[in-house]
């Protein structure tokens, strides 16, 4: 079968689900963060695929922005994790339950 939009979208969906699973199952904040990156990339893939098959470059511009924002987000997020680690001596979500009253 000729590879079309559907194929890329399925790959994107599966990749997204993998990332989601990582966020849900892993206990290490850093790995959860990586899983988030996976999810972002899955979205990127879908966008690029749409862009290609719809003959419209706007999708790729969007991806460009996503990558930029993701970079910013990663830097801030990691800085937060470092700060958190300094304070609590852990990077383990089960130990970070300050939100509980």
């Amino acid at each position, binding site marked *: 079968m000729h590879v079309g939009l559907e194929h890329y979208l399925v790959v994107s969906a599966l990749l997204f689900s993998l990332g989601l699973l990582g966020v849900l199952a892993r206990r290490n904040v850093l790995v959860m963060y990586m899983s988030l990156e996976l999810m972002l990339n899955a979205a990127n893939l879908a966008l690029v695929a749409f862009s290609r098959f719809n003959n419209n470059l706007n999708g790729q511009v969007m991806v460009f922005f996503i990558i930029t924002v993701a970079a910013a987000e990663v830097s801030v997020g990691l800085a937060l994790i470092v700060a958190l680690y300094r304070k609590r001596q852990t990077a383990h*979500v089960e130990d970070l339950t300050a939100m509980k*009253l």
Partner: protein
Amino acid sequence: MSLLPWLILFLPLAGAVGITLFTQRDRDLSAKISIAAVWLSFFFSGLLCLFTSGTFKDAGLSAEWLTVGDLVVDFGFIIDPLSSLMLFIVTGVGGLIHIYSYGYMHEDRAVSRFFASLSLFTFAMLGVVLANNLLMMFIFWELVGVSSYLLIGFWYEKESAADAAKKAFITNRLGDFGFILGIILVWATLGGLNFSVLKETLAKNPGAMGGLATAAGLLLFCGAMGKSAQFPLHVWLPDAMEGPTPVSALIHAATMVAAGVYMLCRVFFLLDVPGSHAQLGYMVMAVGLAAPGAAMFHLATHAFFKALLFLGAGSVIHALHHEQDIWKMGGLKSKLPTTYRTFLIGTLALCGVPPLSGFYSKDGILAAASPSGSHPNPFLFILVVGVAALTAFYMARLFLVAFLGKAKDHCVDHAHESPGVMIWPLRILGTLSVIAGFMGLEQMLGRFFGDEHAHSLGYIAQLFAPFGHAPLAAFFGLFATVLGFSVAYALYANASTDPLPAKLGFLARAMRDRFYFDEIYTGLIRLTHEAISYVASWIDRWLVAGLVVRGTHGTTELFGRALRLVQTGNLQTYAFLLVLGVALLLFIILK
């Protein structure tokens, strides 16, 4: 010319405001400003009377105060014999009391405040007198209430004075409640507030008030009851004696109590509807008997001799350094000769001894009720005669015990006559009490109220007039006075303690406690307002604030606590719930 009423009315107010704002510190100056203001008013009243001979109508007398829709309220004056006479009483008697107070209050710390209140009182009374419409009258009516409140409670640090002031105001308020409703009722049925407008409307259509006449009359009368201290709203008056004695004179005699009668005379035409008399008759007898002229006449003479008596009593109290128990006095005749003489005149006038003024004015009322009078009413006639006898009795008692006989306490030894500023008002009032009866006031008022029989007689003829046209009334009046005097003399001529309580037993105790009216009122208020407010407070605290508000708050919090169990604080639990939600949504959308 039309400037005069404005000056008369606002001079005392200017005095009060000036004293309050600028001369609080200078006690002497404050007193002088106040006295000057009231006497200037008196002077202008004289001018007004001279130039207008009693009646005056002019556009400059009225200004629009408030107009909304069909409610038109003017700020205007009515100048007729009735108000002219009252102007003289208020400014004249009031002015004498001002002067008297200058001596009486000399020692007091807060003279400025006293005179400011006095001026305010004069202003308010003048307003009531001059008002040309019901609402303006009500406005000044209320101001009279508040200024009397300030005066009665002048010594506010005394618990009794503060309580008395409060009581006077609240009792007056009960009357005002009726008054304002009466005003609204009259306005709603007749469509106006000005006395002249109302009179015209009623003249054109005598039945305009219809079935509401009685209601309106009773409501307006309610207001008069409060101010004039008519039964059952009389309870505040005895307590009002807690104020300085000149205030008692002012309230009792000269003006405030008179305001009620004046108001009834002013709105007399509204009440002059068959059927409404009967209810009123037993209360304000003369007005009820359709004899407002007699009522106003008595009001004027009463102002003179009642003020005289109070000021005389004040003079005694002043001389004895605030000793008020008559059973500690006695033998004041030689110590206070002028006070003694003027007090004697006052007593005789009040008791209705001819040829003093009280005899004539009381006779006017008696004559109206006598079998040959305009409104024969034997029951009232007997009642009035009885009251006259009682009056003679208690006044003679007071006089015998306080002025005659031997001194009963050593405080009398140091007594000396009051200074001139206090004595001269007594002398003037004494003179007025003597001559007011045959000056022709009665005829003047009679003409105003449309009695065509009234005509001027010579002064000598005037002296004997009562015996001429209603001999029965005159003789009964005299008889009552003589009876009262004799009984009092028999009991008190040489008494050193009061023999009466022992003889009357329970009745005396009831009298001492003023027939338990205070207790009844306190009980009534407890039973109604206190009880309701207790219940309201309970409802508010436990049902509204407690059950409903706290209940809502409690239920919300309960839900919150239940939901808090889900809040583990674990990021992944939240994420899991989120994902479940997303899955559910996707399922619903995509299925």
